[in-house]
């Protein structure tokens, strides 16, 4: 597959460690975009801060690289202001679930038509190895010296509990199957969330490439992603982590409800102030 329209110039200095899972994620996102025929100029990649959040810089498209944790908020507004754009948020577990937890919750409820790809390596990489919200119980770090005592954050169970539109988990150790799910997520209408398990080769010596191969299994072909109770059950399973599309619940999006697009489909940048209507409003205030 020729994904070169998304390639940055060869001399681009990539800030990731050799062997990082981010390289594979970048590769399959490019493949998915190519196969879905999304033009770089009609796509916005939004991200926050962290190693994962640098991904948009290594993919030739429109980039909104904002604040730590706030990418989903900005992305939702970009989509609302111009629904003709494809909008993808790509950021890490700290950005998506720690700093950005409230936005994650409320955008599940709001259901904008954007895709959220969360790179989940269960550790903070860019700040050198502290626990992330998804770090496993007992995980030892320079800060959590006795091991993590928090329950790990379960984004899938939360999303399903809030009746999210699209909830999936993949492991980048299996690029082929991850590609299929990410492609589905991008083409899905609504807030499509994918938790992407990936190793951090520098700071997570527990959840390694090998660990992610041995501790996962795929949802069976007979699995029904419309069954919310079953989805919740699978999302909260102890032991091996299921992979695949857990839950699909297509419903009207945030943009569908916006009165501004009911009769006029123009994105906001094409619109002007309505001064004649304002004059009417002013005159109505003379009564």
């Amino acid at each position, binding site marked *: 597959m020729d994904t070169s329209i998304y390639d940055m110039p060869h001399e*681009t200095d990539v*800030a990731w460690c050799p062997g990082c899972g981010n390289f594979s994620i970048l590769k399959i996102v490019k493949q998915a975009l190519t196969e879905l025929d999304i033009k*770089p*100029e*009609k796509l*916005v990649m*939004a991200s926050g*801060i962290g190693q994962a959040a*640098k991904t948009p*810089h290594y993919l*030739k*498209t*429109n*980039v*909104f*690289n*904002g*604040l730590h944790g*706030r990418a989903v*908020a*900005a*992305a*939702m*507004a*970009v*989509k*609302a*202001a*111009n629904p*003709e*754009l494809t909008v993808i948020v790509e950021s890490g577990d700290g950005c998506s679930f720690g700093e950005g937890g*409230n*936005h994650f*919750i*409320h955008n599940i409820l709001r259901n904008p038509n954007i895709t959220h790809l969360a790179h989940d390596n269960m550790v903070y990489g860019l700040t050198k190895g502290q626990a992330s919200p998804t770090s496993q119980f007992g995980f030892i770090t320079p800060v959590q010296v006795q091991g993590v005592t928090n329950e790990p954050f379960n984004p899938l169970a939360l999303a399903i509990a809030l009746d999210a539109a699209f909830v999936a988990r993949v492991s980048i150790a299996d690029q082929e199957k991850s590609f299929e799910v990410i492609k589905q997520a991008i083409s899905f209408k609504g807030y499509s969330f994918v938790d992407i398990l990936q190793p951090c080769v520098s700071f997570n010596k527990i959840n390694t490439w090998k660990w992610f191969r041995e501790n996962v299994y795929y949802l069976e072909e007979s699995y029904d992603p419309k069954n919310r109770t079953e989805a919740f059950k699978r999302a909260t399973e102890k032991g091996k982590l299921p992979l695949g599309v857990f839950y699909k619940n297509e419903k009207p999006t945030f943009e569908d409800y*916006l*009165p*501004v697009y009911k009769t*006029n489909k123009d*994105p*906001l*940048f*094409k*619109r*002007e*102030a*309505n*001064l004649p*209507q*304002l*004059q009417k*409003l*002013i*005159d109505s*205030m*003379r*009564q």
Partner: protein
Amino acid sequence: MKEVSIVLCGEAGQGIATVEQLVTGMLKLSGYHVYSTSEFMSRIRGGTNSTLIRISDEKSKSAFIDRIDILFPLSSKALKHLEHRISPETIIIGEEGNIAEEYCPNRANIIKVDFTKIANEIGGKIYTNIVSVGIFLALFGVEENISKSYLTKRFSSKGDTILQNNIKACQRGSEIGNQMLEDGKLKIDLQKDDSVKNYLTLNGSQAIAMGSIAAGLNFISSYPMSPSTGVLVFLSQKAEDFGIIIDQAEDEIAAVNKGIGAWYAGARAMITTSGGGFALMTEGLSLSGILETPMVFHIAQRPGPGTGLPTRTGQEDLQFVLNGGHGEFARAIFAPGNAEEAFFLTQHAFNLADKYQVPVFILSDQFLVDSHYSLPDLDLTNIKNTKYIEKTDENYKRYLLTENGISPRGIPGYGSGLVNVDSDEHDEEGHITEDVHDLRPKMVDKRLYKKLKLLKEDFVKPELIGPTDYSILLIGWGSTYSAVKEALELSTRKDVAFLHFKQVYPLSEDTIDYLKKAKKVVVVENNATAQFGKVITLEYNIKPDQFLKYNGMPFSVEEVKEFIEKI
């Protein structure tokens, strides 16, 4: 009397706002200049609130005054609440139980009316307020056809019985009012002015919201916070008519990031909040600084710190707004003095933000947003909006280094170029850089010095009121405008002038000439630390004297006048 000051005082939930609305509406339609402002507690029921209504036969009486000519106490605690403002001349109209005589310095001026009994005769306690409305109408000679059609418009949707009872209550009140006039208990001698009938009435929140509409606002995301919420509510009511996306954000952090995202995609966006909400937005403010994304903030100030006094007024956040946000970048701050300035400055703010790709603030306060003004017009003939958006090509660079510091602003999806914005220090294309020798200083100069220079060139000049050969210069900003102006007009001093700033940052260099002319410069501010005085000291190296008030109430005309006489 050239002007009458009436105060209604009672509990939250007693319907004072309804009386205010009915009375000001009908008096305006009868040809009087009206202005009203409220001070109220942060609660939905109970407590003690008061509303001041000023009725005059000449313009610009839109300031808070202590004097009360006629007082309607609606609860037993009302007179105690207003003790310091009641004078022997104050006429008190109320029912027995609400008149605590120890707070009445002149018993001859008490007029007892059995409002509850009359209301019950008509149909229930709910009509009490309409009886007092009727008294108002009689005192000011409002014609019956005006009151009838106004009440019909207001109450017809509630069914005929309720409407007829309201009309009856109003008539009973009018009879009582006419009797007062006949008995010579009070006398009001104001001229009606036909041209006023066509004035529009609006509050400060509406003026700011309509200014944003005039600028083509089409996206607002905010989290409710007193006293800023009025803007969000008004825009929500008008959203469908004007094509505005309304988003009640999960928190203020989301709100500002959404505003910035919307501008990035080509919308014209604003947030509305107060100091505490803005505190959560400061990282976002800083983001708009480095992204060079335009952004408009409306901050309605209230006294802090912390939760402070949620429903009261103050000018405590100028230094916060001026210095908020980490790092260094340019910004502009406007501070409207009344509804008209609020409208035009808000409209201007969007175009300025767009032109220079900077955050721009409308800094109002509770007193301004909750005051009801009447004015001849909001003239749209000179309203001009320019969108500074360019269609991109393949070679587009979002942060192209240019002579004046402004890079053409592309937006995603408009043209064949790519628009990269980055919170990290970046190169011209918007990608991360750590080139500290060349690019970093260039980008700082672009965002800070070059833009500040341009903003100063577009400075909105202050307004000088009073003699040009002054030796004493009072300086104010924002909502202190009306009180200082009126106080100066009433004062006997001929050597005092008032300079009202509508743009409080950045200041233009030549404005110092106003200050140099004066032997003495005094800042008048609703805060404890002379925050604008500090800006003056910083920009002009002049240390002004201070006249400050920081109890949560606006300046009254009387106290400013007293101050002027004593300087």
